[in-house]
């Protein structure tokens, strides 16, 4: 049970539509069920990891305080992610400037990306400039390898992080009924 709720009533936004890989319209009309198979076989061009894909990875992480996803609360959004070669920069916006959960949210994002992105990437996670009272401290904490590793040694903390990641696999798709 959270002792203190930092923002009891945050604004909920409509989710952005789940991103779809844009397909060039083929000349022949195909049935919906066999398009995937065709696309798989015919197109051999590599598809590099991009902003959308990383956003998909983190959009359905739960906020530690609310039963809403980070996307619904506009904590993360696609334009706030940049990919440049092997560097990834993820910027996020806490719902209130005094949000004490910011570090935890950042940690969840980091854990998710550590697990879901190849090792070659260097991941930077930062608060949106000017969005938080102790922006520098949080940024420093989130990008300090040692401190992140130490935090993940803490079983209680790790469990909280796992809870926020429970539905991360949905990638913005709504829950099935």
């Amino acid at each position, binding site marked *: 049970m959270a002792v203190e709720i930092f923002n009891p009533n945050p604004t909920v*936004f409509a989710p952005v539509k789940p991103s779809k890989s844009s397909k*060039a319209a083929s000349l022949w009309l195909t049935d919906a069920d066999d398009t995937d198979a065709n696309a798989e076989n015919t197109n051999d061009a590599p598809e590099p990891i991009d902003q959308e894909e990383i956003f998909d990875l983190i959009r359905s992480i739960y906020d530690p305080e609310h039963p809403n996803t980070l996307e619904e609360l506009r904590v993360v959004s696609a334009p706030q992610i940049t990919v440049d070669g092997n560097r990834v920069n993820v910027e996020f916006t806490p719902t209130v400037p005094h949000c004490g959960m910011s570090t935890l949210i950042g940690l969840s994002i980091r854990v998710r990306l550590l697990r879901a992105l*190849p090792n070659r990437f260097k991941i930077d996670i930062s608060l949106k400039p000017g969005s938080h009272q102790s922006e520098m401290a949080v940024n420093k904490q989130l990008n300090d390898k040692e401190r992140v590793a130490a935090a993940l040694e803490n079983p209680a903390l790790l469990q909280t992080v796992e809870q926020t990641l429970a539905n991360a696999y949905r990638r913005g798709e709504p829950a099935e009924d």
Partner: protein
Amino acid sequence: MSSTSALATNSVEQLVTTWIVSGRDEDIAAAVTEVSEGRLLAVVKALGPYLTSEQDELRTKGVDFLATVIGRCPANTLSRQSVKVLAAFFCDKLDDTETIIPGLKGLLSLPSICSSVDAENVPSVFAHVRMRALVQSVRFSVFSIIDGLITHHRETLKGMKSEFIRPYINLAEGEKDPRNLLVAFGIARVILIEFDAGEHIEALSNILFCYFPITFRPPPNDPYGITSDDLRVVLRRCLSAHSGFGPIAIPIFLEKIAAGSPQIKRDTLQTMAECFPVYGPALARINARKLWNALKLEIFQPTDSLTEEEALSTVRVLVVTIHSEDAQDEDVQGLARDACEECIGILREPEKSQAKPAIKVLCTFMASTPSVARYTLANAVPHLLKLFADPREVPARTSVLLLLSDLIAAARNSSQMHITESMPETSSPLAAPPLAPFKDEVLGALISGVATLATARAALAGLTGLVSTPHLLSDAELGFIVLKVNEVLEKCYDEDHSDDSNAILKLLMTISSLSPMHVRDQTLPFLFKSLPLSPLPRDNLVARTRCQHVLTALGTLCGPPPLFAALVTEFSPRIVTIAFSPSDDDPELLAAFLHALLSVMKRVLVGKVDDSHDDVAGYIDTLVQALYGLCVRAALQGGPAREPRVIDVAGVIIGLVVQRLPLPFVLSCVLIALAHLLFPAFLSGKISLLCSDEHVTAEDRFATQTSSCIQAEATTHERNLFVLFEAGIVPLEPKASSLKHLASSTLICYSKVIIDVDINTCAECILVQGLAHADNARQAEAIFRIVGCIVNKHVENLGPFLEHKKTAYWSEEIMSRTATPGRRRQATRVWTWICKGLLVRNHPLALEFIHRLFDVFEDETIGTDAAKAFGDIAESDGVLTKRNSAVVKFLWAQKFATGILPRLMSGAKDDSNSVLQHANLVALTALIKVIPNTSYAHEMTQLMPLLMRALQIPDAEIRASVIETLLAAVTQQKSTHDVLAEHAPALVRQMLGYTKSSGAIRISALRYLSVLPAVVRYDVLHPCKADVLRELSEALDDPKRSVRREAVDAREVWFKYSG
């Protein structure tokens, strides 16, 4: 006389003595006979010394013997007097600690003849039994006795009032064993409901509320199988049995709900929901505020969604309880009013997260009483509408409309609920729906919302709710909605928002299921207009995408008969124009466009056939003839309709229509006529008979003038038409296509037409001639299917044909090594289809044919083909189905699989001949991929090693099917998990290897890796975890996005996998 009775006494004494020593069952049976014959006295007399013995053990045994005997006697053997004496005797024995158990047993077994006797005994039971000193099983008999008394002598016990209730409470106090509690709770409920328990409420509450909430957790392997839910339900029924509990219960409920774990919270909420109606509105009203505050917490800050749901339904019960008396009043006071105002207050900020639970509460109110529902709507709807209209709240409009649409859906459900709840006769089903007073304003807001892109989807949800509310909207209003929505749809297509257009199509489908005319008269013309008349140029991607969206919309919408009729009317001339347009600068474009139009019709037809629409059959004269005409004319004269893909889709349409032709007499002439036409048309060059004369005149013949499209002289395009022959033949009813019947009448009707009268010759001719000249795979496939179909439907007339296949065909075409490999493979396919046709109807010849395949397993040319044929044979396909009027026996594939599996398995295990073993393994994997996994689940222990070996076969197709089989086994068969654990580490290594290979196998291997942790114990796979995580990180960098996605999910699963 006296000597016989003395003899009897002696024998009884003997009986008793031997039993005391040996405890044999026969002695009891003998004693039961004695008592049944009226010699109870003798038995008691013989027992005398034991019943009063000084030795504890003997006394116990004596009473036990008597109790057992009495228990086994038929109910009517004992007289009233003896029951009374026995009862008194057993009661006496209750104060003796040694005889209490048999004494209770005796009392329990006494037939309940006279109530007075038992009533007298009750006090002595209470007086002598000291529950706390007794073990569980004895206490259980005490409860059982009281339970029995209550069942049989309820009136007497009721008369005893406090004399019964008070001692019982003392007796039941402090009971802890769940088995006894189940009985005790049952007794308590009866006392509470039927007895005058008013003055004992507090004492009774003491022996009941101390158990609430139940925290009992059954021990593992509990032999009694009592779950905590059993206890919960029984206790709940006690707590809700008397209204007097109310004042005691509510503070307890409030305490438990605030402090409990989620499980206790749910239990408390469910108990509350069950109790409130019993405790009554007065009490609920007094405590409404406190209860609402507690429940509110569970809704606005829910622990989990299940608890939230329970809390909402408890709120509903509370509101119904409070307001049940003023159900029809217009003015609502009390909780509903306060809570409603509170929620509307929260709704002032519709975009905030608390608005969602608030609207849930309001929706719950909608499902309570009609007056509360009306009150809620009367307050919430104007509030939301005002917010919507407020220019300062424009950014929140989406949220407002979403909330509004939730409310609309709740209003719809509540009106349906009220109708189904009340008697359909008494209440007028035409009663205005609750939303009726606000209809115009709501509709106005939604229509204006739908016009703006940002709010469109929310507004569409609201409109769908409105439209699906019965008796709410008038026909004109529906028309208005369709008109407005069309405008939005057009904008969607122009600006390419396909997600919105899906929501629009859903709304339009809802409308067209109510009244299709609006969609037909407004939406369809607009969609038709946006379709180009001729194909769009290749480089105009935007317009082509738009066109595809329009086609998708048409395919989705045109299901209802009037809409489909409009579609066919519109498309037919377009199709003709495209098919025979003079310009042929880019034939592929034309063909693709033609194919697209036909595909839309096909898609609609598939849906219609699934829903068994009756209008489909009516298109036999128009659509089918036109399509035949179109394709034949193109084959003869050229044009885009020659394209095989176009012919394919035309074939599917023809097949679907023919499937739906009704069998019985009325239209069967159509059917027979069709059958008459098909064979001469394709086999004897009378093709014009089948086609609409607009395209093909009687003079049109195949290139060879008199002969059929399967002969050598026919062109490729003409032979491609074989697909259409298949389309017509395959779904034909066997009776209609029976050639004997057919031939005679054909000869009469078309005297010049000469076809083979004998079906054997006919099938042979199709097969031999067709295959001899087939110049692509699709033609050959059509021939296989036709043969399979004819075999299946007419096997009784096909004796010579099958005989020839068994002998000459088998040895010349399949076994013979002189034939070319291609020819032998083709023959194997033919063989496969013959087997299939026979097997589907469980024909005795089927197995003989199938077993022949084993003979060629060693053949290096066709061995693998023969092995793979096992999969094709058992696979269910779209050809030999009930819909296509094939003879299909129930569970044919399962029966086949059960029969053939042992042979394949032993073949795959036998390593004396590696070629044979390999072929068996291939056949095995091919077979189990296509059969339902229940039919091989029991063999899984032995199959696993074989499947593991099959994974080594360097054939991507086989590997993929093995992984698919393994996946199906993991997800659907719990029983195989032990077997799996044995092979899991090896499987993990294998799968990790595949993640580095290429093609689709990477995805299936990753999927398999991600399901394993769920079904294999952690200690088994612990050694692999580090490897898996390391190797999956390579897959995270796969060039394909879909592979990376699976890799991320699989790796996440493995991260969480721990002991």
